[in-house]
């Protein structure tokens, strides 16, 4: 079943057989089979440059936040973007909604080229794609009452009828678990979890199809995280929402995502269905990420070894090879890894990885991994 693409060509996720990939998703998902993806992202690139002219000429201080990022999201699906801070996952989300202008690449939403839209057209399209931010304290204007905050999207999109607007807002607030009697209060009367519910109500009040969740539970207490995640899953089923879920907590990702894309230094290094990724991680970075996730068992934790150097060696310049190569035990001394950038290729149906030697690190550190809750994969004996 393992069909490694030997020619090394890039495989764009959208190029694969959508029907088959749809079937591979976790059971119970409401993904439409055989349909075109709701969101197609291809070759997204974004570089942040220094403002000073001399630094620009020397190409100093350039940060490649995104390099050739491609993925797609089916209707009703949740795609997780995971990675450490600075891996570009939030930038990717921001570019998808065109809150940040990417340098190049394309974003297609339901067949519409988002990057080609005029400002007015983009504003209209925003009713169909929404975002929930990480910080529920900063993302709500402190001068607005909760009702005004939830009504605002309706007002912006032309619902002039005050009574209808009010009714819809209150209905939405109740749906996310707030009472109508709290609607006239200011946002700071609420706790972090309640504020995030308000932010969710504000994002969903327009009945969007795609919702970008930019670490929506990271700022919350663990007990509240579960409540908000449950609310998000319920709402997804109820309203047939499509989520692009930015997250760095793997446990959360596993809980909510159908498919997961792992990002490292602005690139997607591995992408597979959630089950497949946890069962059979192939990229050394993914393996390390999974091993770094804490397990409530001190013996397991003690038995683990850190597979990668924790940070890239100081002063190292990104070479022509694999971005992970300076840290990677597999590729550290291999000429291919330092000279040739591995391209994202499909090694199993729906499982994409950007590595010259996929699966090797897993074999080297299989013992400690086997002790965790993550079972061995039949695909990689």
């Amino acid at each position, binding site marked *: 079943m393992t069909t490694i693409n030997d020619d090394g060509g890039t495989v764009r996720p959208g190029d694969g057989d959508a029907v088959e990939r749809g079937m591979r998703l976790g059971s119970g998902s409401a993904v439409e089979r055989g349909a075109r993806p709701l969101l197609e992202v291809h070759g997204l690139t974004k570089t942040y440059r220094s403002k000073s002219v001399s630094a620009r000429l020397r190409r100093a201080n350039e940060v490649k936040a995104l390099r050739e990022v491609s993925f797609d999201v089916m209707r009703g699906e949740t795609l997780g973007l995971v990675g450490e801070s600075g891996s570009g996952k939030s930038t990717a989300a921001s570019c998808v909604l065109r*809150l940040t202008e990417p340098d190049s690449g394309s974003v297609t939403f339901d067949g519409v080229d988002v990057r080609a839209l005029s400002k007015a057209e983009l504003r209209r399209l*925003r*009713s169909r794609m929404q975002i929930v931010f990480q910080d529920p304290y900063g993302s709500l204007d*402190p001068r607005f009452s909760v009702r005004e905050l939830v009504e*605002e999207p309706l007002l*912006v999109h032309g619902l002039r009828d005050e009574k209808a607007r009010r009714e819809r807002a209150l209905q939405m607030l109740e749906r996310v678990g707030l009472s109508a009697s709290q609607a006239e209060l*200011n946002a700071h009367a609420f706790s972090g979890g309640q504020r995030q519910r308000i932010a969710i109500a504000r994002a969903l009040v327009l009945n969007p199809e795609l919702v970008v969740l930019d670490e929506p539970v990271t700022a919350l207490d663990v007990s509240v995280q579960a409540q908000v995640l449950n609310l998000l899953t319920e709402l997804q089923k109820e309203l047939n929402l499509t989520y692009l879920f930015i997250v760095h907590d793997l446990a959360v990702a596993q809980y909510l995502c159908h498919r997961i894309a792992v990002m490292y230094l602005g690139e997607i290094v591995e992408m597979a269905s959630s089950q497949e990724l946890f069962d059979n991680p192939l990229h050394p970075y993914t393996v390390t990420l999974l091993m770094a996730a804490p397990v409530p068992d001190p013996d397991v934790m003690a038995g683990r070894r850190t597979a990668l150097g924790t940070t890239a060696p100081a002063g190292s310049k990104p070479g022509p090879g694999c971005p992970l190569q300076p840290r990677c035990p597999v590729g550290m001394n291999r000429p291919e890894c330092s000279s040739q950038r591995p391209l994202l290729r499909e090694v199993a149906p729906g499982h994409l990885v950007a590595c010259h030697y996929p699966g090797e690190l897993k074999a080297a550190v299989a013992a400690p991994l086997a002790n965790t809750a993550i079972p061995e994969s039949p695909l990689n004996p």
Partner: protein
Amino acid sequence: MAVAVAEPRIAVARRRIVQSDRVLVGALAGLALIALIVVAGPFLWHYDANAADLTAQLAAPSADHPLGTDNLGRDLLARVLDGARTSLGAGAVVVVAGAVLGSVTGLLAGALGGMVDTALTWLTNSILCFPSIMLAMAVVMALKPGIPAVVIGLSIHSFPWYMRTIRGEVMRIAALDFVKSTNAIGATQGRILFRHIFPHLISTIVLQMAAVFGASVLSLAAMGFLGMGAQPPTAELGAMITEGQQFFLTGQWWLAAFPGLVLLIAVTLTTIVADRARELLDPRGEYIVAD
């Protein structure tokens, strides 16, 4: 259907602080009283500020002339009332003109950035190179001596202060998540600027206005003192102090003392208000909620 709108907690907390701050309440009450007296002056006191009574020159304060008379026999109380109206009124005009000009340019620079921002920053930096009196003098030279020219000069000098603070605040607030979130729901730039950013600037603007008011009244008086502001026979506190000081040595102290006292009280009160307001209306938009 009347909907009882709950008062935002900020407002409640603020009102509580305002009520408990006796110095602030006292200063505000004092300013209100001065404003009332100045506005109602002509109805409160029967003498005309410009009516010379040559039989009563340089009269000491008495029941008939509570503050005495000047060298032309004009009633000093009437002139102080009139002068305060001129000075404080002109100060208010400077404050409002500066605030309007400064807010517009500050919003433009902060929201548009780029060339507009560079040009406006360059312009305001150039203006701030001059002391306010120098700039006002230059305008007086270009136009003609008198209150309008001084008001124009001082307004030009005061707007960069608003512009700079507002520009910075617009840029700071524009980077906050709630602005991004409003952008993400598809709001127009105008709505974001006026409904989400501007309301957060009001406290900054009010604060700046209170701070500028005292300085403007003093600069106006200084221009009057230098003879470039109000021209005779217009009553203006600064000019009255100049005229009055020559009589200090000959014993007619009231001529300079009373206008000076009114100026001192008015400016001190506004300074107190500005100072206290700074603590209450935190310009960073983060609120101290006293529970």
